[in-house]
């Protein structure tokens, strides 16, 4: 019989067995007859003019089918476009050629591609392509890049990508108010490397008979890839099919459409052979997007009672060498507009200067703008509390937007859907046993031990979104979602979604939505995604939008199925539609439970079509497109306890409490998993991860031997809890939870470490809080030599 309550149940992820057992099929697992392999020749220089490329040695190497440079792609592969052209910010969009033409602009910039019978032959031949470079000075540092005579793109003066601002109220006036203090701090939000477990890959196959081109690609949004690639390749969209098979993590790094994907697709047509490319981890570090990389001057104006009256933020954002697909939106609308956080701050000003440098392009990385904003805001809240001698919990509570003020419009102009921020804060403090922990901290200090308590109250904007609104921000698409729910004649259900989950568990949660609505067994529901041939449209999985937008579309499609099924059942049972009750997957006549039909019996009748209501089409499926009226705004409070070893500067995380509110919860197990992963990435930024270039633009953290991906053994058990405040934006009441952990955790941990260091009088240490940095902070505070 059908499960009675599956919405809200801790159902195990159906994705996991195949992932754990190694039977999942990733792009690099695609093997086709006649498959050949591509390898890219990449620049060893951050900035150089290409004088000449000699491919003769590579071309004559055994197994090589072809070697191609920018010249060979001329007129056949257009530059890669930027998909989010934020208006009113003087955005410069220099061309991003698929292979570098005259100049290379970062280490790893692709200058040529070799195709050979085997992968090893391709790599060997790639090492024989001789490129004559005239090495140019590189601009790596953002501040130096602005105003440097060295230009990454000759037509972009001062290397300035954009100058964006938002202003609500009047910060200056607020700061002049008598008694108001202005707290200032320079904050670095360091560059990170996304490190999806699966690196990028693409396989393209062209069928000369049908003229169809199929591309398997590591993408979070295959439909977007299809639209963009059809333009880049001048290939008719209806002949182009893009498939995202199993995708091993993305964290935003698989949103963009990359040059390699376009080149591989082009080569499959050109050579009339299927072509595979799978990047190495080193290539991944050099040519897949990076994230974050902000330098910020922040000012917070606060009254003596702790009321925050103003926030002014000036940020430099590093875009790297080219504009990646969504890059312009990340440090602007996804950053500046959320700077009010969960607080009522009447006067907010934010100015962002985007900068080109000779480094790997940046784009969305888990949280994408919102972690950066939350870091600024939550560090400033702590600094304000310290300035005023207030408890960090108290200053937050004083400024939170009260429950009764929703929907709440903040100074940056956006309107929060629903919230009960104080409740989440209270719950986190309760779990932490805040007064007790503060007592332990005081006692430990007596013994020369340095414990620190950190808090982070956050709100995020996700579930994008209303297409009209995102269109007005320059996004070159809509952000609605489509879904199909289809019964088969034997009563099984197939769900098609335009979203493209790659680890978030929607094959399970979407099945739960449908099983709940249609009263069928979870095992009878299959969820399919990631193929442009299978559904009308989809805008992808990112920005914690999949369940709020795509899940709602699935829910609405299921409603249509149910309505049609009810009409068929009423017809066959010879009663009116209103006389039927739907319970546990069965329609029965009100007051006569014996007279009924299961929904599976109805499905069979819908396909047989022997006895349908007059004028009804056969078959049983529902299709829905959902365009939300607003974004959704999850929120919560994270709290943690750390201990700092003052002799070595090492930080040990002792406890971590997370109270998140993502609206109604479909599957608590999956929500916990999403929160856990997010917290780990957030902690990792606070304590360990950083990408570093030398002055010449070489990536010093160029492998996992130098870039510190977090290890499970370094982390405490996470104490997760939730409050549940449904959103009115969608009928499911769901928000998003893919990024909350990353958003909240970073400032939470940094605040805790700085709290531990407060007896030394240390105000701030920039991330990551590596032992040496903490130790140096202590030495400087003590007036020591360091």
């Amino acid at each position, binding site marked *: 019989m059908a499960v009675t309550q599956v919405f809200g149940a801790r159902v195990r992820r159906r994705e996991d067995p195949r992932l754990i057992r190694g039977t999942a099929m990733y792009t690099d697992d695609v093997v086709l007859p006649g498959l050949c392999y591509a390898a890219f020749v990449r620049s060893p220089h951050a900035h150089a003019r290409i004088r000449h490329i000699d491919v003769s040695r590579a071309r004559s190497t055994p197994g090589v089918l072809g070697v191609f440079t920018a010249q060979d792609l001329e007129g056949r592969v257009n530059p890669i476009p930027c998909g989010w052209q934020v208006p009113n910010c003087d955005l410069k969009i220099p061309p991003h050629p698929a292979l570098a033409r005259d100049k290379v602009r970062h280490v790893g910039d692709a200058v040529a591609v070799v195709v050979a019978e085997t992968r090893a032959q391709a790599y*060997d031949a790639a090492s024989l392509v001789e490129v004559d470079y005239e090495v140019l000075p590189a601009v790596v540092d953002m501040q130096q890049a602005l105003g440097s005579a060295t230009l990454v793109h000759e037509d972009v003066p001062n290397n300035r990508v954009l100058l964006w601002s938002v202003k609500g109220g009047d910060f200056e006036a607020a700061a002049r108010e008598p008694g108001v203090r202005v707290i200032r701090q320079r904050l670095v939000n360091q560059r990170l490397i996304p490190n999806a477990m699966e690196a990028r890959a693409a396989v393209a196959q062209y069928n000369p008979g049908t003229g169809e081109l199929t591309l398997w690609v590591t993408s979070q949004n295959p439909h977007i890839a299809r639209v963009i690639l059809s333009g880049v390749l001048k290939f008719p969209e209806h002949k182009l099919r893009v498939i995202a098979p199993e995708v091993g993590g993305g964290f935003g790094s698989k949103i963009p459409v990359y040059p390699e994907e376009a080149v591989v697709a082009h080569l499959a047509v050109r050579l009339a052979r299927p072509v595979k490319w799978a990047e190495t981890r080193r*290539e991944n570090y050099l040519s897949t997007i990076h994230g974050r990389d902000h330098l910020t001057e922040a000012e917070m104006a606060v009254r003596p009672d702790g009321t925050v009256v103003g926030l002014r933020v000036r940020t430099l954002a590093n875009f790297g060498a080219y504009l990646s697909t969504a890059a312009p939106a990340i440090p602007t609308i996804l950053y500046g507009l959320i700077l009010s956080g969960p607080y009522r701050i009447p006067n907010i000003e934010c100015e962002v200067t985007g900068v080109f440098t000779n480094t790997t392009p940046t784009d969305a990385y888990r949280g994408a703008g919102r972690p950066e904003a939350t870091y600024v805001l939550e560090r400033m809240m702590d600094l304000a509390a310290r300035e005023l001698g207030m408890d960090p919990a108290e200053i937050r509570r004083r400024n939170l937007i009260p429950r009764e003020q929703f929907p709440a419009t903040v100074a940056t102009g956006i309107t929060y859907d629903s919230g009960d921020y104080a409740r989440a804060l209270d719950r986190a403090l309760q779990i932490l046993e805040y007064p007790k922990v503060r007592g332990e901290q005081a006692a430990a200090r007596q013994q020369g031990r340095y414990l620190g308590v950190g808090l982070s109250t956050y709100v995020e904007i996700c579930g994008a979104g209303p297409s009209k609104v995102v269109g007005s921000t320059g996004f070159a698409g809509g952000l609605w979602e489509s879904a199909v729910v289809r019964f088969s004649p034997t009563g099984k259900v197939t769900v098609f979604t335009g979203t493209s989950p790659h680890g978030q568990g929607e094959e399970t949660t979407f099945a739960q939505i449908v099983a709940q609505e249609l009263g069928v067994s979870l095992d009878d529901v299959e969820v399919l995604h990631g193929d442009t041939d299978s559904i009308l449209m989809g805008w992808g999985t990112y920005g914690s939008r999949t369940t709020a937008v795509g899940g709602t579309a699935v829910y609405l499609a299921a409603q249509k199925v149910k309505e049609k099924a009810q009409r068929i059942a009423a017809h066959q049972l010879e009663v009116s539609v209103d006389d039927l009750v739907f319970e546990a997957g069965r329609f029965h006549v009100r007051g006569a439970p014996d007279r009924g039909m299961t929904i599976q019996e109805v499905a069979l009748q819908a396909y047989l079509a022997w006895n349908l209501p007059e004028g009804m089409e056969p078959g049983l499926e529902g299709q829905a497109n959902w365009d939300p009226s607003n974004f959704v705004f999850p929120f919560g409070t994270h709290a943690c306890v750390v201990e700092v070893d003052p002799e*070595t500067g*090492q930080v040990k995380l002792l406890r971590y409490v997370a109270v998140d509110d993502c609206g109604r919860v479909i599957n608590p197990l999956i929500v916990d998993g999403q929160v856990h992963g997010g917290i780990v990435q957030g902690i990792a930024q606070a304590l360990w991860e950083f990408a570093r270039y030398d002055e010449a633009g070489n990536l010093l953290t160029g492998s996992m031997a130098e870039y510190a991906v977090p290890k499970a053994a370094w982390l405490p058990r996470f104490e997760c809890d939730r409050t549940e405040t449904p959103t009115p934006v969608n009928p499911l009441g769901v928000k998003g939870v893919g990024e909350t952990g990353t958003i909240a955790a970073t400032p939470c941990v940094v605040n805790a470490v700085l709290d531990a260091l407060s007896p030394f009088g240390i105000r701030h240490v920039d991330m990551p809080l590596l032992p040496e940095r903490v130790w140096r902070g202590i030495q400087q505070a003590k007036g020591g030599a360091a």
Partner: protein
Amino acid sequence: MIPAPFEYVRVHSVREAISLLQQHGSRAKLLAGGHSLLPLMKLRLSQPELLIDLGPVDELRGIREENGALVIGALTTHDEVATSPLVRERVPLLADCAAQIGDVQVRNRGTFGGNLAHADPAADYPAAVLALEAQMEVEGPAGRRTIPASQWFVDLLTTALGPDEVLCRVRVPVQAKGQGWSYTKLPHPASGYSLLGVACLVTVDGGVCREARVAVTGVGPKAVRLAKVEAALTGKRLDEAAVAEASKLAGDGLEATDDLYASAEYKRHLAVVYTRRGLLRALERAAG
């Protein structure tokens, strides 16, 4: 991430390996666990034309006790060193050091001999074998010879092993009863190697230090003994103050290199802290 082309041959005896090394010289490389060599080859930083896989050579395996020492075959994995009851009983310092190498996968593949022959400046074993005064048994065309640990590490990635020699076994003197020991490290957050690792072996008699051996790895181009610290401890009545005083000498003249995660200055400071903490831990064990 894709190595340059190379030939590969499996050998079944040390003699066979030596003869191939003689034949191919520096174009050939010996392969044991491959945990240092293969990553370098994948980055094409190392491009040997011939890999000589020692895997099938049985004479390079096994751990046995002989004349007051453990004789440990070069192909013994880190995990075997870490978990062998014989090593844990007779040379607990070495077992504990091995247990702190990398992670489970690394310990299951990486070998004792391979690690010592590679002489990575941030490897863990070098500190332990220096403190234990181990002896390397090598074989070459001219026969066998023994090289003490103190002469083994020559420079960054360079040992006293000749180009046509094979490191076969390591002779590690068993720890005396009552000797205190410790291995403490600050791992590199990315690689798991030592940003700094300190091995201590202390002989105490009636509260007085008869002999102290302290070796540090990860700080400079090669692991070294801290002679000044050792001298300051020897003959002293060891209490916390004496240990702290002696440890202050740990950074003195210590050659240190900057890296992304720790500057030379910070490493010298850590050497002092970890030496003190390591010695105190060793003293606890000596007393216990």
